[in-house]
């Protein structure tokens, strides 16, 4: 089985979010980047297929050279090779188009993407890929088994789960459940040493005109300071609600 895992390079969840250039760009300074958590669940499941079923695992990312450490981490975790499509990941459709092109020419049986990236949370790429390459698609996938060319996948639905059987080629939008947090792998030292020796192919994009451009980002309004009122001082509370908050 030939697996392609789509890896998004996203800010660590604890990052401080700020914008620069008149609020048109995300401020990168001091931000640490990681493998998108949903993709990491997928990558870990792919490693299982590699170890148990002899699958070959390729990881792919659409992005500039600065995303290579993230790909190399995926290699250190155990992926066999990596591809970077050398263009800015400006919007979901651009990314999906680039990925679909590689997938169509690469002969992949299974494409594992995350159901969404935690940076812009578009949640569209896996579905778009499936549409573009005309493959089966399971989103919000929380379990996946493959036997020959048939696959059994479970997906999260409102208040429960649904199990479907389908066949390869298949695209999934994966999430936690594919594996659990405790299954996530820490790259071991040998893996880190080997990562450098594994192929990381840089491919130029096909027609990469973005369909959308960001005009402006806004952060939610800052929460006002909290005023603590002692439990036995109801008068003060009423007066504050009336005079300052002006809600009563």
């Amino acid at each position: 089985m030939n697996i392609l895992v789509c890896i998004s390079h996203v800010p660590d969840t604890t990052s401080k979010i700020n914008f620069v250039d008149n609020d048109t760009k995300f401020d990168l300074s001091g931000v640490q980047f990681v493998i998108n958590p949903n993709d990491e669940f997928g990558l870990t499941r792919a490693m299982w297929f590699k170890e148990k079923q002899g699958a070959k695992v390729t990881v792919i990312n659409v992005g500039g050279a600065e995303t290579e450490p993230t790909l190399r981490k995926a290699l250190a975790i155990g992926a066999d090779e990596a591809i970077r499509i050398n263009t800015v990941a400006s919007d979901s459709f651009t990314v999906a188009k680039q990925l679909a092109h590689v997938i169509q020419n690469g002969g992949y049986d299974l494409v594992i993407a995350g159901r969404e990236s935690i940076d812009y949370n578009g949640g569209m790429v896996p579905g778009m890929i499936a549409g573009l390459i005309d493959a089966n698609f399971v989103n919000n996938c929380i379990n996946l088994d493959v036997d020959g060319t048939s696959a059994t996948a479970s997906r999260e639905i409102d208040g429960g789960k649904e199990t479907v059987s389908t066949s390869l080629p298949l695209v999934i939008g994966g999430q936690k459940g594919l594996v659990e947090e405790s299954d996530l792998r820490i790259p071991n030292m040998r893996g880190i040493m080997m990562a450098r020796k594994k192929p990381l192919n840089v491919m130029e994009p096909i027609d990469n005109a973005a369909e959308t451009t960001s005009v402006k980002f806004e952060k939610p309004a800052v929460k006002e300071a909290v005023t603590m009122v002692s439990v036995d001082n109801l008068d003060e509370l009423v007066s504050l609600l009336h005079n300052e908050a002006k809600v009563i």
Partner: protein
Amino acid sequence: MEATEKNLLRGGQFLVKETKCEDVFTPEDFNEDQQMMKEAVTEFVDREVWAKKAQFEKKDYALTESCMRKAGELGFLSISVPEEYGGMGMGFVDTALVCDYISGATGSFSTAFGAHTGIGTMPITLYGNEEQKQKYVPKLASGEWFGSYCLTEPSAGSDANSGKTKAILSADGKTYSITGQKMWISNAGFCSLMIVFARIEDDKNITGFIVEYDPKSPNGITMGEEEHKLGIRASSTRQVFFNETVVPVENMLSTRGNGFKIAMNALNVGRIKLAAACLDAQRRVITESIKYANERIQFKTPISSFGAIRQKIAEMATNCWVGEAATYRASKNIEDRITLRQNNGKDTHQEAELKGVEEYAIECSILKVAVSEYVQNCTDEGIQIFGGMGFSEETPVESAWRDARIARIYEGTNEINRMLSIGMLIKKAMKGHVDLLGPATAVANELTGIPSFDIPDFSELFSEEKSIIKNLKKLFLMVAGAALQKYGEKIEKHQQLMLASSDILIQIYMAESAILRAEKIVKKEGEDKVKEQVAMAKLNLFHAIDVIETAGKHSIISFSEGDEQRMMLMGLKRYIKYVNMPNIIELRNIISDKVTKENKYCF
């Protein structure tokens, strides 16, 4: 810049030569692989160690052992082991890095890791013969076996060569029989291999042996109960008794009587690694303290905005940052020296490694002392920032404080290491490896001359600091030179003088490393972007000068009188002089503003 015989300082030479910032390695120079290693280790520690901190405090020795096994699976135990013996064969900086980031969460795991990978494994990789290395090292590198190091005895602590444990050769000449008592043995409770030091007949020096241990067939080895300790509570520490333990002669390490040397060299490596191991504990305590200070409200204000707390936070961050600067500087020197020795073709890898570390034994002692004292201060002030909560077992600073205490005691107490640093320097000078006498004479001449009254141009960043560091080195040479002239080799008997001189030496190394680190970052990033680092380097130097002034005064007064004393005291004043005094309160505020805003130690 690539290290060459010409630009790579020898051990101790920092005192008499100037170092360029391009020639030091700093944590900012970690390459992508090192960055990935740092993240991998941190992820492991966050998940497996930090998350279970409370369990370690309940003396869960089995947890320490299972964490060690997991560390083995991830390859963390084999970083410095050569590839031929199942290791990664990585450089000394990588070794220091892993040791640093793996050690921050609890001293229990840190000690187990250090004892196994350092003193438990290194004696064999450094001194073992081919058969011994083939037989034992792969097992140690993978974590299949754990190692311990049995040197200390009830009556032989700092005086390690005075051990009473005996090794008696059998009549057929095939085995030694070891009998004796060892104490304070880390990892004793779960080790399969012991490096045991014992005396053969009435030899002057002890001899090292590799002793296998299998509880199912104990071969005369029995263990005391676990010691109940102030800190590192889940690190196994026991007495080990040997009663006619039979060891094949092939298991002698190196040659008869070479054990003391092995013991000391293993400790050299251990010392710099211990310094590294004291770094991440500081980062974690600082971050926890900042988070707490930002959240804790008193007088309707987060306590992090009070000057009293800001001062503590700034000093804690500064020490940690300075410790990093010096530890990685020396680690890279060791790595480069090893590579150079190997490349010149004369040394095998093993010899190169041994001599590379030995070369910087002075720096290793300096670092052990300085950084173990930083972590002690850091955890102490951490508790103070937490106030009453800091005294509670529920906060991570409480155990960090207890755990930090041991670092000043093991791997040679800080007193022993202070004296060693000066003792080794004197030996190096006598062997001609470091020319102290020439510069000392030059300083003495300078002192009798008329000082220049011109006000130098210090407009360039760090030009004044660098000039002060040069002067501090002169001050050391003045004090140590005069003391040595007065006492000769008997100087070793004047311990308080040795300790004071060592304080000067330590402060110089740390302060210079900090200035060089800051200068290097400024050159890369521009001063505006790194004003906090500049502030830390300056703040540290200011404190260093205070310590040096006191230590210098104590020393000078102890061995001189009359005109000579007056002249030296004047010299002291001259050498610690600032033209432009830094406003240290302002410096502290720059530092604390940054870290409280980032809500973590962020350098």
